[in-house]
């Protein structure tokens, strides 16, 4: 097992509150690692640090053996880390196709001048972006909505669009922040299948999710956080039987009441 992402003693403070405390884990190449825990456990904070949205207070994040500390946020996509967002961050005034085309930003180079003059290179890249975006829209089942305004789409479709937008960047590590939130059972099952295909094509996934069915079905390993601290790590089976986890997390599953 080669590590793709290594997280060492990662901590994050907000004011006086320690949201994430000395967390260690790694994501291996081509695996799905689920990060779970009760609300407020610090999952999203970890994801925000791994995706370069907020810097860690302490500790180190290494990606492909490279320290990510000094890397600015916008370089993450080019290095192979992209993400989706818990509270969707879509470009509502663009079409679905355009949204996904934004994901091709790092794969293209046309300058402002060549875009404005519509020079050969800009046209070629535009075509290339359209084709690739189209391809991913088919993968996630949104091809027929390519020219719809993103703002007019229902929630579930926007989630799929965000995944397509992340996948056109050709990531080696895909970070998903509660992708199944607000989806019905069928949609969740379809999404699980899609994640397995993405994994089969060599992209590792770090998945933050509350939907235990999805996690148990597709996760290779699970890391459990509680109040900012890692309390367990292992295969889905090991986690299900871990008394600490049952106490902290699974015991409250019913109250969390996902539909």
């Amino acid at each position: 097992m080669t590590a793709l992402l290594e997280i060492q003693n990662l901590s994050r403070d907000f004011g006086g509150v320690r949201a994430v405390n000395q967390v260690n884990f790694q994501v291996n190449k081509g695996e799905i690692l689920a990060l779970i825990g009760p609300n407020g456990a610090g999952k999203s904070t970890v994801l925000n640090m791994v995706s370069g949205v907020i810097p860690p207070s302490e500790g180190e994040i290494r990606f492909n053996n490279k320290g990510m500390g000094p890397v600015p946020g916008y370089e993450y996509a080019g290095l192979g880390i992209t993400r989706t967002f818990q509270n969707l961050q879509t470009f509502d005034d663009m079409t679905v196709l355009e949204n996904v085309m934004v994901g091709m930003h790092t794969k293209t180079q046309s300058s402002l001048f060549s875009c404005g003059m519509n020079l050969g290179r800009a046209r070629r890249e535009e075509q290339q972006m359209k084709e690739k975006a189209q391809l991913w829209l088919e993968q996630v089942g949104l091809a027929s909505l390519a020219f719809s305004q993103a703002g007019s789409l229902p929630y579930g479709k926007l989630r799929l669009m965000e995944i397509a937008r992340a996948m056109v960047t050709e990531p080696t590590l895909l970070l998903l922040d509660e992708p199944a939130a607000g989806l019905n059972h069928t949609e969740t099952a379809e999404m699980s299948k899609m994640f397995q295909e993405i994994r089969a094509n060599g992209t590792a996934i770090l998945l933050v999710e509350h939907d235990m069915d999805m996690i148990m079905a597709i996760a290779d390993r699970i890391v459990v956080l509680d109040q900012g601290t890692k309390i367990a790590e292992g295969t889905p089976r090991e986690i299900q039987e871990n008394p600490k986890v049952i106490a902290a997390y699974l015991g409250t599953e019913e109250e969390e009441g996902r539909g």
Partner: protein
Amino acid sequence: MKQVIDKWGKSFGIYLILMIVFPFVMPDEYYRSVGIIIGLHAIVTIGLCLVMGLAGQISLGQAAFWGIGAYTSAVLTTKYGLSPFVGLVASAIIPGLFAFILGRAIAGLQGYYLAMATLAFGYIVQIGITEWEPVTGGANGMISIPKVTFFGDSELSMYYLIWGVVTCVLLFSLNLLHSRVGRAFRAIHKSEIAATSMGIDVRKFKLNAFVVSGMFAGISGGLYAHYMGILDPQPFGLHESIKFLTMVVIGGMTSIWGALVGTVLINFISEGLIMMSEVIPGLQGDIDTIVFGAILVLIVMFMPEGLVPRLRTLYEKSQAKKAKAKAANLQSDQRVERKATT
């Protein structure tokens, strides 16, 4: 060019016809000069639309770039005897440089703070122009700035020269809108976090938008100087910046065509007010400021997306009613195929 016409189709065709025909429909030289002023304003507002409508960065200092452009070309041609052509090139570059330096300095600012910073910049430039008397002539201004005579020096040739520039600026911006860079601008406007996670260097692209809009304003300023033949610092202040902003907001910030439509509208209203003030003496003075202010407030309250996007939505809705859902699906599939094969 052919592709552009395919892409923009009817709107561009209508634009070209109106633009070419206007001076012949209008009875006298006065209206041609109004047409020229509209063209000069349009160059500025299209640039402002890029930075404000697309990239979401408020600029209250656009008239300052306009002024820098005007004085750059005026000073180079009258004091140093350079040709107006060189002056015009400089009138794009120098304001672009100013925009770059200002943009770098205020790169971290957002919203109100950005508006305040650009506002302050506008004041500083206007005061600078007024006080730097040895070069700019101060409050008395400059006279006998040479005309641009690339196509002759009649009002009509000036009209076509300026609208030629408008057309170039328009095409450049329309191309940009539907390109990698334009989408980056729009992405930044909606969500800087999402844009960053897609690999967009937010600061760099904000700066790009700022510089382009500064350059457009500068070119317009240079042309203004040579067209007017005289300059004083008065038009390059906050009043004019707000006017540019109103034009962009009325037409619809997110639409390049909106900037153009808004510019034409505001100028027509302005002309209408001048005409009315000849009949009604009470309308003299700064009445246009009050009217534009009222229009701005009303637009923000009742039609925040602006005229052109609103009309587009209405048009699309009426089209959608006509076509049944199934037919619409078929059509979009065909469109997908066509895009994929071309």
